[in-house]
């Protein structure tokens, strides 16, 4: 991969203007925001289920225009600071994917599933601000969405490599694009001035033992991703568990007993989601 090509692709990634999302959450959020009696909490809860809306909200509130870049890491706080007027404008300017594939829906489910696992794990480990871990879990594959939108010509190739050679999506990305979604996440987090802990969760979840500043965040997302793949809730581009870094378990002081409780919680939650979906 030449530096020029990489720079060019990075440029295309960062040039993203219009990130579309799936229609169901967008419609519901629109409806909720139209109602005069909706509370910030209600809206935040709904937005926290969609990675694109969450990313847009965090990007807006951390923009230099507001004057507190890199400080706001939960949707609830972001909405308090943005207000419904600004939120409405974000929603109105968000479009829907023209062609919705099963894989895309699967990615949304996977991200939500990861967010749930991360939130549950953070709460179990008594971490302050468990919501922030859920946010990182929700956004950990955002780079894949942006790459789909900004480098659409390369996506079929990535999928082909995954299918033909049974590589991880991350490995295929590195081969085809020259970089993985974790790298894309890091670029986006910098460009959008997201808080540093979120950035680390987004860019180190595949190598949590290398995270310097916020190791717990990276490790929680790493474990959350592992869990949602064990339960196969949603689709992240490949099927199979990632290597679970033993250091991650150590850093989090995660005991087998806690792991089992986490499995129980997630088993219940994913089953409920699946049951709710079947016709």
């Amino acid at each position: 991969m030449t530096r020029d090509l990489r720079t060019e692709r990075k440029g295309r990634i960062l040039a993203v203007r219009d990130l579309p999302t799936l229609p169901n959450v967008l419609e519901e959020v629109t409806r909720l925001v139209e109602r005069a009696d909706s509370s910030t909490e209600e809206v935040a809860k709904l937005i926290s289920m969609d990675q694109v809306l969450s990313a847009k909200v965090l990007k807006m509130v951390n923009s230099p225009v507001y004057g507190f870049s890199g400080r706001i890491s939960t949707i609830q706080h972001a909405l308090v600071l943005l207000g419904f007027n600004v939120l409405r404008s974000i929603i109105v300017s968000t479009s829907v994917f023209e062609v919705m594939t099963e894989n895309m829906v699967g990615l949304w489910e996977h991200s939500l599933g990861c967010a749930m696992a991360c939130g549950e794990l953070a709460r179990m480990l008594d971490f302050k601000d468990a919501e922030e871990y859920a946010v990182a879990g929700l956004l950990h594959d955002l780079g894949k969405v942006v790459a789909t939108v900004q480098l659409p010509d390369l996506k079929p190739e990535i999928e082909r490599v995954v299918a033909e050679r049974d590589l991880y999506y991350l490995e295929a990305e590195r081969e085809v694009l020259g970089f993985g979604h974790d790298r894309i996440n890091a670029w986006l987090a910098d460009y959008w001035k997201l808080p540093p802990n979120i950035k680390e969760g987004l860019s180190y979840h595949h190598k949590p033992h290398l995270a310097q500043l916020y190791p717990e965040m990276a490790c929680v997302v790493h474990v959350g991703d592992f869990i949602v793949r064990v339960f196969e809730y949603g689709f992240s581009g490949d099927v199979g568990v990632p290597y679970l870094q033993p250091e991650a378990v150590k850093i989090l002081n995660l005991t087998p007993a806690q792991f089992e409780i986490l499995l129980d919680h997630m088993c219940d939650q994913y089953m409920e989601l699946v049951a709710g979906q079947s016709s």
Partner: protein
Amino acid sequence: MQKIPLNLAQAGMMLAKAVSRPDGMAVAAAGTELTDTLLERFDAMGVTHVEVDGRPVGLDGAQTSSFCATRLEHLPFLFRKYPNDPWMGQLHRYLAQYFRVKAASCAVLAKTADAAPGPENAATDEDA
């Protein structure tokens, strides 16, 4: 709100979503309180599931069991890239045990629930 199989629905539960005939005609609106008569009517119509308010039914033991059984079945494929890694092997075995035990215990719970006397089970004695 909860979507439950018809045989677990009981009089007194409130419909969260309307029930319609296949041709689209509404048979019972959302907010209707279920009665035995209504439930018989649904059954005759061929309705298999209803959505009710609240969560009157705990997670179905049988469903959980089958969910966990599927997870157990898929584990080898999920772990296919690590046949020789001791740590991942350990994890694999741990998870296999977890799902195996859970599937079994939920199946047992489901069986005892089925076997317990109740109106909806009266006709299905042979199945227990």
